[in-house]
């Protein structure tokens, strides 16, 4: 049971990192990103390939994962930043699918649907599996803490205030003399870097990545995490990630005790319950568990 809880906390750490990355893009700047799993995948693949094929040291691989995802984020933002939110939603959704398909088909680079196995982990093999889990728990949550502090600062800096101004009203921000496009691109790049870094960490924990793992469902989980925690608030992203893992895992135990339904029906109830909780949260607690305390706009 302990091993299970620790592993789930590690997963919660990945989800928290992703939620933090999304929070910069969506929460602060107001740009929707339904393709965040694509950036996550880019980071994971970059680090996995560099460490297994070119034998880069792991920390360098993690950094590279963040950089590659950031670069993709920058390009993406340049193309789409001037689009309205609804277009952005569709484009980012498509982007993630393109990444997944490319990873499936470019076998020479990514090993295709077979995936990349044997990705090294820090001290894996030298320590026992439970110890490795604990070490990784430390690494992931340290990363969460560092990213949290940096992003919280960013959020309260003049830069962050401009981002919020853009979120509230782009035209007003532009009239105030802010280069809106440039700010959006920077925000998107920072968010993508965090997502890529999360992907890199994930690859080295699981030791294996494959295109199947980067399905759109993961994006939904992270959006749910951010919605649950409170869009815009950095603390909310972390609370939300813990909430999502708790929801995903507790539904296992709850669905197991429902009598008179078949296994498929249990699985359907479980997935359905997760989707329903997102809808209910949006409806009844749109500000999330940790509402953003913003100085740019007072809630009525």
């Amino acid at each position, binding site marked *: 049971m302990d091993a299970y809880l620790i592993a789930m906390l590690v997963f919660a750490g990945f989800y928290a990192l992703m939620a933090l990355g999304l929070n910069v893009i969506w929460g602060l700047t107001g740009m929707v990103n339904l393709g965040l799993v694509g950036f996550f995948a880019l980071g994971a693949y970059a680090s996995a390939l560099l460490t297994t094929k070119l034998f880069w040291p792991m920390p360098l691989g993690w950094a590279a994962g963040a950089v590659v995802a950031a670069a993709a984020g920058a390009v993406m933002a340049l193309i789409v930043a001037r689009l309205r939110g609804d277009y952005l939603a569709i484009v980012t959704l*498509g982007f993630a699918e*393109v990444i997944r398909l490319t990873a499936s088909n470019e076998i020479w680079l990514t090993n295709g649907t077979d995936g990349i196995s044997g990705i090294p982990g820090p001290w894996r093999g030298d320590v026992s599996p439970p110890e490795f889990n604990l070490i990784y728990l430390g690494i992931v949550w340290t990363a969460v803490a560092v990213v949290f502090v940096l992003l919280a600062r960013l959020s309260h800096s003049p830069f962050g205030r401009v981002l919020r101004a853009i979120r509230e009203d782009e035209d007003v921000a532009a009239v105030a003399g802010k280069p809106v496009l440039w700010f959006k691109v920077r925000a998107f790049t920072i968010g993508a870097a965090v997502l890529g870094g999360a992907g890199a960490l994930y690859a080295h924990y699981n030791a294996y990545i494959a295109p199947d793992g980067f399905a759109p469902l993961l994006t939904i989980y992270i959006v749910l995490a951010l919605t649950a925690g409170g869009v815009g608030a950095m603390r909310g992203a972390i609370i939300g990630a813990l909430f999502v893992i708790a929801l995903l895992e507790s539904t296992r135990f709850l669905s197991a005790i429902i009598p008179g339904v078949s296994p498929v029906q249990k699985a359907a109830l479980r997935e359905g319950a997760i*989707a329903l909780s997102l809808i209910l949260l949006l409806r009844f607690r749109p500000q999330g568990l940790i509402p953003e305390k913003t100085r740019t706009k007072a809630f009525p």
Partner: protein
Amino acid sequence: MIQDWRDLAQVLLNGVMAGSVLMLPAIGFNCIFAVLRYPNFAIAGFATAGAFAGWVANAVYGWPVGLALPLAFLVAGLVSLTAEELAFRPLRPAGPLTVAIASVAMTILLENILRFSFGNDLRGYDLPILRDWRFDGIRINPQQLQNTGYAIVAAGGLFLLLGFSRLGRAMRAVADNPVLADIKGVDPNRIARVAVFIGGGLAGCGGMLIGIDTSIDPLTGFRVVLSVFAAAVVGGLGSIPGAALGAMVVGVGEEMAGLVLSPAYRTVTAFLAILLVLMFRPQGILGGRN
């Protein structure tokens, strides 16, 4: 791959057939967008719901397609209306993106309601499968031709409704300028409900046509959803004729992909079409306003 004009004609024809299947969900998507200004990703769920409704009528109760199709429209339309009233309408003040995200969740919810009720098994409509007709080496399938016919009839019905009825004029008025329409005494909520019902219903018909052409399971709508969005964007978000045209462009593009890229990259073609259009004509081919 393309050796003479017949090959090209065949690919174009295949593309039109594929596109006509995407057309109704894309029109449904744009119909809802035109009036409510949010992308309703749950269109995939409505399509699957319609496919199952039509299947029950046809395979279980033995209804002919001509009768099952209106039922698919009705059921999917009601599902869409229910989703709107219970889940999406209260979220509208929070902005279009909030609704969009809720609609993604709604798709997963609908998929799992269907999975709970019907299981994961693949199901086929109770229809004979007809051989292709051949004209000078070019093959056309009568069944797919018939499906294209149904799609055109449904789309045509919508055009007539929009163009020549009071309700249609009211819908266009709300789509053009909700405030002005309100002043003129058009009830925007009523129009919204009509748009949501028709949009969901068309998606349901599209889902049933996909089901006739292939087979159905809870993931039926999900499989085509990216192509449908691509069609809607390429044609111009909110434009009904745009959606029809966009569906053809995406359909042909995806069939062409097999010749130019690899068939394993069909979905990428749809995405490339979106990007190209957005870079050079962000309002879409037939989108007027942006």
